[in-house]
């Protein structure tokens, strides 16, 4: 039973000027089998939360703790966190020229699983996973994310999610920039991952539309660097109707008009 526990997390962004505090005391516990939607307006710090948990060097943890099954995540290097069972599907996946998708996937799977996957099984596994996400097999020989459209990049993030099988997945605005078909395909991929075992999901989003496809167990409103309200599905419906005005004082819609 995997549990990701975040306690009183304060995070600053490292910049050339003075560090700026973005997260101001985040408390959140995600247990296996649970899907938590983190909803908030732009600039509220949602993405910072995901990057800080994954260990991006730009963010500095000033206080608080993050543990995965009791292990101190903040003490781990970025790759150790991934091998411990954390996965971040990024909002802006990075291009790595000259490294083929197939080489990248095999290298990552070898690292996460602790041994090289059996080649014959692996080829089949990747082919099947790509077909599930409507990804053309030709992508396997292209450089990682290079020249991919926004939707293609997101499909490949979910492809990695399915192949690396983390204990806890953080999906950072995976829905942004997707058309209806892509949103459905990507959501189905997330649901397959959820159905595959006792896993936890943190679903970060600005809009409610992805929640039509992925059912959240908990909804948290994120504003000004912390969680300001938590509830169930009904909280998302309320955001859909009223937007974030109640939390920010400014009018920002949570539904696409």
């Amino acid at each position, binding site marked *: 039973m995997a549990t990701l526990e975040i306690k009183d997390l304060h995070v600053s962004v490292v910049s050339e000027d003075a560090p700026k505090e973005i997260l101001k005391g985040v408390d959140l516990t995600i247990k296996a089998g649970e899907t938590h939607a983190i909803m908030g307006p732009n600039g509220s710090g949602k993405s910072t939360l995901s990057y800080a948990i994954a260990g991006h060097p730009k963010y500095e943890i000033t206080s608080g703790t993050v543990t995965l099954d009791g292990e101190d995540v903040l003490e781990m290097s970025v790759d150790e966190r991934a091998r411990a069972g954390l996965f971040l599907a990024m909002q802006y996946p990075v291009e790595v020229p000259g490294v083929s998708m197939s080489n990248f996937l095999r*290298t990552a799977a070898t690292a996460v699983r602790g041994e090289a996957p059996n080649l014959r099984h692996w080829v089949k596994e990747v082919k099947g996973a790509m077909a599930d996400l409507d990804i053309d097999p030709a992508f396997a020989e292209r450089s990682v994310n290079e020249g991919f459209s926004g939707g293609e990049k997101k499909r490949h993030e979910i492809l990695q999610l399915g192949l690396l099988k983390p204990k806890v997945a953080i999906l950072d605005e995976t829905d942004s920039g997707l058309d209806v078909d892509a949103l459905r395909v990507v959501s189905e991929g997330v649901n397959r991952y959820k159905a595959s075992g006792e896993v936890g999901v943190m679903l970060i989003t600005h809009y409610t539309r992805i929640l039509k496809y992925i059912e959240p167990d908990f909804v948290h409103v994120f504003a000004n660097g912390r969680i300001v309200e938590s509830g169930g599905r009904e909280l998302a419906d309320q955001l859909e109707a009223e937007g974030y005005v109640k939390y920010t004082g400014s009018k920002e819609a949570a539904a696409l008009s």
Partner: protein
Amino acid sequence: MAALSTQPHSHGAVVPVASRAEHFTSYDVDAFEVPGGREEIWRFTPLKRLAGLHSGAAATGSAAVEVNASAGVTVETVGRDDDRLGKAGVPGDRIAAQAYTSFENATVVTLPGDAKSEPTTVTVTGAGEGQVAYGHLLVKAAQFAEGTVVLDYRGSGAYAENVELVVADGAHLQVIAIHDWADDAVHVSQHHVKLGRDASIKHTVVTLGGDAVRVTPVVQYAGRGGDAELFGLYFADAGQHQEHRPFIDHSQPNCRSNVVYKGALQGEGAHTVWIGDVLIRAAAEGTETFELNRNLVLTDGARADSVPNLEIETGEIEGAGHASATGRFDDEQLFYLQARGIPEDQARRLVVRGFFQELIAKISVPEVRERLEAAIEAELEAVGA
């Protein structure tokens, strides 16, 4: 490429002393002044480390030249008076002229016309530590010939030479020059490419070893339809000086050139220089040219100079462009790979291998490709990346 932060390159700041067309050339070493180091063409080069190649050092030995020729390819050793020599171009600096004035024998490799030949390897082994040697090599691809010549430089000592690459009408020549010298070696070389009508050359320079290596590939066109692809791949470690100065002289209409050089640097005092000159003369209408240099600086203390120069004397061209970028390791790429569980050292290797992949993929000789992949791997081992 997204891996690199693009910096403005320095060609805006450097005003060439004169048009590239007016550069002095001569077969006679005495026609050149001994360079002092401030001259435009020498200002990046550490003259003190050149073992006197620039200031009249006499030969004290000779380099061993061994040719492993494929079927149909002829190999000759000829004297200075062979009238095929010196036709592809005139030495463009004092060391090239010194080499031309000083060599005793030349090696002539001829690829048969109207035929496809398997790769031929020319192995040049330096005269030994503390020795000075001069040489001359002529590779001729006869009309409609098609083939590959690998130039493999090894060993110790100082070695200056001219390499003539004469590609007859309709011939297609691939040349891969691998500078895999021992740590002490000093090597200064000018390659003279002469392309006939509808001829093509794919010319790859690989520089890995040596203390100081300076290679000047010059491409001239003898007819319409010539196509030159110049690739370079270099990896400089602490203390190494690697300088590449490609010059494409577009004097004929409807010719094409594409120059891509990529280098990685690591360690204190590693220094690479890339000067990419392209001249499109008034007669060269319909020219299409692009040149690109990318440098990946892996550690502190390394320095990459990159200067593209493009001179255009006619507006009637297909296209002309250049780009240059020198950057440090991209932290976002490392983060992305690590976030998928890949340990940092492995992630670094993936990125560097990826950086060179585009060029390695263009080498059609599998043994050479594997050797380069292994060499890059060994370079990365050395720094513990």
